[in-house]
């Protein structure tokens, strides 16, 4: 894994987030370096998904700031995040169930289409050329994820493991700089997990995406990631390379539920 020593792509500084009286995140800081695979782990309710939602602008933290590609902001809308190269997948698959695999992945190209709605509707001249170019990009992703056989299948009819793969395909279609994956392997069997791990590593290595992922399978986290940040009750309790995190007493206690 290449970029463990790369420039900082995104940093989160002293971020706190609460919903009414509930504190989801308290004063958390960490960074993501260009080219790395960064894991966010922690027990249920530790604030992992909230953290991803803060990063891509879905939640606005009450305190702290986010610096992405050198620009500091406190507020950013999800579509701005998407335009600036942040793509994500969701814990519960969020695809257009009635649309085919290909069409779902094509929606990932939407931000890259320059011609307006009218041009696209006409499917003529420059718009057509543009569509061909985007279709090519989608076909490369379909080839990459080995989902040729379900190209024309409505995703609602697909098994869960394949839906997860299509969702990753849609995120990759955006050619993101930063890819946020929320439990990409939840509910998968061993073989599906191995496939997904391979796709994540290759997306990182071959397609050059920096990746931040939430995952519960410790084996996967330790194998894939360059660095791991551990949250518990909204606080950061550890942040280091997998080998060190694995040996950290606070992390072990958090997972085994040892009370002090």
């Amino acid at each position, binding site marked *: 894994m290449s970029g463990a020593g790369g420039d900082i792509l995104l940093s989160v500084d002293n971020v706190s987030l609460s919903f009414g009286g509930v504190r989801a995140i308290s004063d958390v800081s960490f960074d993501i370096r260009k080219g790395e695979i960064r894991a966010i782990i922690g027990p249920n309710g530790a604030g992992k998904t909230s953290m991803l939602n803060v990063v891509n602008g879905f939640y606005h933290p009450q305190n702290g700031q986010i610096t992405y590609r050198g620009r500091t902001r406190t507020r950013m809308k999800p579509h701005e995040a998407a335009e600036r190269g942040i793509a994500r997948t969701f814990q519960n698959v969020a695809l257009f169930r009635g649309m085919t695999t*290909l069409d779902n992945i094509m929606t990932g190209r939407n931000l890259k289409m320059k011609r307006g709605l009218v041009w696209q509707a006409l499917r003529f001249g420059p718009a057509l050329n543009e569509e061909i170019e985007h*279709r*090519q990009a989608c*076909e*490369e992703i*379909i*080839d*990459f994820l*080995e989902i*040729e*056989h379900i*190209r*024309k299948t409505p995703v609602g009819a697909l098994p869960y493991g394949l839906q997860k793969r299509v969702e990753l395909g849609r995120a990759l279609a955006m050619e993101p700089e930063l890819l946020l994956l929320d439990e990409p392997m939840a509910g998968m069997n061993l073989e599906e997990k191995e496939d997904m791990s391979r796709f994540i590593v*290759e997306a990182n290595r*071959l397609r050059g995406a920096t990746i931040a992922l939430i995952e519960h399978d410790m084996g996967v986290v330790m194998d894939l990631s360059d660095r791991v940040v551990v949250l518990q009750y909204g606080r950061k309790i550890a942040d280091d390379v997998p080998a060190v995190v694995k040996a950290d007493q606070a992390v072990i206690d958090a997972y085994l539920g040892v009370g002090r």
Partner: protein
Amino acid sequence: MGSAAVRGDANDTFAKLLRAHAAVRGARPAFRHKDFGLWRTWTWAQVYDETRAIAVGLIALGLDRGDTIAIVGANRPKLYWSITAAQMIGAVPVPVYADSVADEIAAVLDHSEAGVIIAQDQEQVDKILSVRGRLPRLRHLLYDEPRGLTDYDEPGLHALEAIMAKGRAALGDPAAAADIDRRIDAGKGADPSVILYTSGTTGRSKGVVLSGERSIAAARDTVAFDSLTDRDEVLAYLPLAWVGDHYLNYAQGYVAGFCMACPESADTAANDLREIGPTYHFAPPRVFEALLTRVQIRMEDAGAFKRWLYRRFMDAAKRWGEKIANGDKVPLSARLAYRLGDLLIYAPLKNALGFSRVRVAYTAGEAIGADLFAFYRSIGLNLKQLYGQTEAFLFVTAQADRAVRSDAVGPPAPNVELRIAPDGEVQFRSPGMFVGYFREDDKTREAMTEDGYVKTGDAGFFEPDGQLKIVDRAKDVGRLENGEMFAPKYIENKLKFFPNIREAVAFGDGRAFVTAMINIELASVGDWAERHSVSYASYQDLAANPRVTAMIEEHVDAVNRALSLEPAMAGAQIRRFLILPKELDADDGELTRTQKVRRRFIAERYAPLIEGLYGGAREASISAEITYEDGRKGKLVGTAHIVDMPPHPKAKEARAA
């Protein structure tokens, strides 16, 4: 024999055939491949250029006349071209099964002495690299799909595309082009053209060496037999290393000049079939069975009107379809009903299956159920059977159009000499017959008779209409006490065509008569029990039910009646049978992993039941301690009721052909 020389055609190697196609039909499509969602087409002229580029590249890597070169992967145009490129140089291509595990691949690669390997992708490259230590001769490893391989740093690993680019550049020089031309001319028909390794289900796999002139002579005969032309098209989806693919697609394609379409991946083959709409098609019986099951399930889900329409017209097809296909006389009303059915049901159905344009379809490899076979014939698919072997370069027998039946595999293919040895073994001499096993002369001698026939290892006999019937492996065929032939698998297969019978084991070698032990199929018999309010707790319970016994008795009687109609088999009718109180299971060592019964093992374990079958008792019990493969011990307890079957009289006359 030697018919290629008699016919005096100079194109006696595949490289010469390719060069001729490039000249004669250069603009006709030769290959298609679906990649990135689009079908890409290459003409014969383009294929000739690409193949020459590979050949020049391989020469630069040091490949020379007489060397072997292994090709590991799925059906991709560049892998087919690599086969021809090797043949251009006079090297011998060895296609290897892509789904073999590393160990099996290592054995074949090592035995074939290949110094150069062309692999499809990272998966195959990884497999080969993992056994590189066992392949001292391996100098160069080429790959077709670069994905995931870009940062591999292995000595001798190259992208096939890079080798081709060098070849293309070199071909700009007229001297290099002339050199390739010379090498093509230097190729002789008698040279080894390809080595196909047998799948090894019956012992270690052997390398079957085929020559160019024999391969081409055999393919010419069958191309003429089925009137294949350069307007035909196939979907090349069978394993590259299997004789079926090398014959039906590669050899016949290169002889007839038709177009080979390579699917996008194994998973998309069904869909690609629909898109291409081949005119010539092969599939093993289990594929046809799976397709039919899918159709039936989809029809169950259809609306009431569609279901009615489907049933109504499938009945018409069942009654008249085969007769119409075989050119028999049928009443005008039936013809009209069939025509309407074709419009409403058969044609759309064939379209959904990708069979709309199929003129000739073959199946082979195992026995095909009569109902299954009749279904496809009745909707107007020209499905036929053939019998073949790698050693024959496939065709030994083939059914002609309009002379098709499900229970035999056809008369000898053109120019094939076929005979039945005294012990019942089928032996042949054929135009495409192999030259020998690679590096195993002793095995070659074992496989041949002194007068030059090849022993198939299969037992069979000729039907009155001249069609061959394969009954069993020759070594499994025995004799009853009175000398009548006893072919256990033949009888077992007949029983197993009944959905209620899952497994059957027949005994009779050296005995006075034939007996059988039967396993019922829990799914279908259980379904029957539910519908007829027969309550049961377990397999054993159901197997002991008298009504189930009566049902199976009818099936056995039907098999006996069928056997009585066949002069060679009438003596081997089942005289006594029982339903086994336990399901035969691979985990208990009673079946092989490929679900074949292990007859000897079963005979030992169930000896008390067999004694009962031959002892004249009304029932037999078994109570034995058995040790499972993993060392656990279990107890096998059960009682089976034994049923006597009156034999049918032997048919006096052979039925009209």
